């Protein structure tokens, strides 16, 4: 089996701020675009209903703002990615070039999906996010770096200490974020669990 162990120790690039709390995955990728059997074409539909009006005219979303063209880092507020578990959401963002996210907080399934894709989603306090967004809006060309190993976001002269669940950080930095291989390595232990589970043994085991 080909093992994929790509280490993600830092990502950097231009950043694009997306304002608002509780941005749900239905906004990130509306359900009607999930009628697909691959993730390939999702990029063009990211934030579709927030970007286009009903006539198909652009409404002025940051993703369409030339100043943020080619941004690889997204800056968000709190509870980003809430709602549906659809991995289509981070898959769509990734296909728009997003490789790292900095935010106040994330819905759990969304953060897990990002990690499964090798995208770090790190957390800063609201005050730092505000400062960072102000700086980026003032100088959209500035490079923002998520230094995972070092635990800091670097933006111009400023450094912000971020948080990320240690398991996520670890698996990104050591390349085990692609979890299938890690889990497969323990199949012997899985057998033991199977043997001990009451419902897999006619409920004859005490558990």
């Amino acid at each position, binding site marked *: 089996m080909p093992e994929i162990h790509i280490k993600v120790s830092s990502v950097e690039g231009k950043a694009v701020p997306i304002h608002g709390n509780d941005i749900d995955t239905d*906004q990130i990728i509306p359900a009607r675009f999930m*009628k697909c059997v691959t993730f390939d074409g999702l990029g063009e539909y990211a934030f579709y209903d927030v970007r286009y009006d009903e006539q198909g005219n652009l409404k002025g979303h940051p993703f369409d703002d030339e100043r943020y063209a080619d941004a690889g880092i997204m800056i968000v507020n709190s509870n980003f990615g809430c*709602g549906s578990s659809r991995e289509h959401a981070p898959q769509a963002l990734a296909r728009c070039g997003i490789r790292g996210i900095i935010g106040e907080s994330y819905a759990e399934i969304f953060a*897990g999906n990002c990690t*499964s894709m090798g995208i770090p989603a790190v957390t800063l306090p609201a005050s730092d996010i505000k400062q960072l967004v102000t700086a980026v809006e003032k100088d959209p060309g500035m490079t923002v770096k998520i230094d995972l190993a070092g635990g800091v976001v670097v933006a111009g002269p400023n450094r912000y200490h971020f948080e990320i669940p240690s*398991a996520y950080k670890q698996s990104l930095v050591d390349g085990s974020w692609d979890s299938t291989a890690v*889990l497969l390595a*323990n199949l012997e232990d899985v057998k033991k669990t199977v043997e001990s*589970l009451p419902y897999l043994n006619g*409920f004859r085991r005490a558990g």
Partner: protein
Amino acid sequence: MGRNLFDTVWDLHKVRTLESGQDQLFIGLHMIHEVTSPQAFQMIEERGLKVLHPERTFATVDHIVPTANQERPFQDKLAEEMMQAIENNTKKHGIEFFGLNTDRQGIVHIIGPELGLTQPGLTIACGDSHTSTHGAFGAIGFGIGTSQIRDVLATQCLAISRPRVRKINVTGTLKKGVYAKDIILKIIAELGVNGGIGYAYEYAGETIRGLSMEERMTICNMSIEGGARVGYVSPDETTIEYIKGRPYAPAGEEFERAAEFWRSIASGPDAEYDDVFELDANTLEPMVTWGITPGQAVGVSGRLPRVAELPDEHKEIADKAYAHMGFTEGQEMQGQAIDIAFLGSCTNGRISDLREAAEFLKGKKVSPSVKAFVVPGSKQVARQAEAEGLPEIFTAAGFGWRGAGCSMCLAMNPDKLMWRQICASSSNRNFVGRQGSPTGRTLLMSPVMVAAAAVAGQVVDVRNHIQ
């Protein structure tokens, strides 16, 4: 101190601690549907892997299924393609598939329990955030992304961090016209849509104990709307009674042994929790959402909040909600006209929901200004309803009677809001665009409140319309 169910069940399924600090957790039951699984099959095939325990995965179709005309091939080519993908994938990998040509098809979170697949003490995963529903049985059910579906297919395991556990203790008696839906909408309004991040919610207390399994499912279902990936209720005699005799439930002597195991895992009276939240059911009234998150809900007799009076962190989303909904600060929800009434979804598309709504609708007529329809959550729910004569009551009242599926809960099928239509809905999400129109509007409420709104043509306090 005693252990809570969550810790007991987690430890039973923990294979080992991984280097990352996450646990490798064995998944007892894996359910899949057509929207989030095709890419996962593609991923395992690309790596030359097979499905490790095909007998522990079950599949159905729900999201894209048309509810009016289910003839194949579907008119929607993309939907047909997805349908064929799940047919092929399940066939190729030896996975049992409850397709449209079986009498067991339905919304994934409805068929698991009704077939007896969902049992206490299991870990249950599905590529769908409302997998928390299955927690009503004392299982740990959680939604996963497609890469994690790949992991479960290939290894029957997940790499996952253990959450903390918050007990939500509900005491008191529900008043007439107040339902399980109102309990969970109240909890979300109180604790916030992100209050449950990092937690599993255990619903406990005399009020929860007094609820039927279907009512418990409604509550656990919407845990995710409160940010909690997992919600559960400890199993008791109500749980055991519900499971008995279902197609995939243990039978005979094995059932007795199973029941003994199920009783043994319930949280003890002295179980420990990371946090406890108390809710008094005596004070609850029917709830209605007014905004664009499930936490933006008020009691039906109340008034909408004034943005200036809200805590700072809620102001921006409240502004957005008012802009989208077109409501006025301080207005009441009672009297708000509606265009569509939707009864269904994995939150409230079960037989008891349909019975209660039908009971209310007997001898009444849907307002001429409203288009109303009811979508049973599964074929079995539909068959049961037919046996009880419910479709006749619905159609006599002016409700359309449809085939089983997710329908207008998320509008990945022909059932969609149009333009700025406003929908009284028994589903679980009122996000902008959720019901198929970017400018459409959703009011979440209990099924009987939906029925009452359909008849009145506007939001009403159902307590004034029942004896």
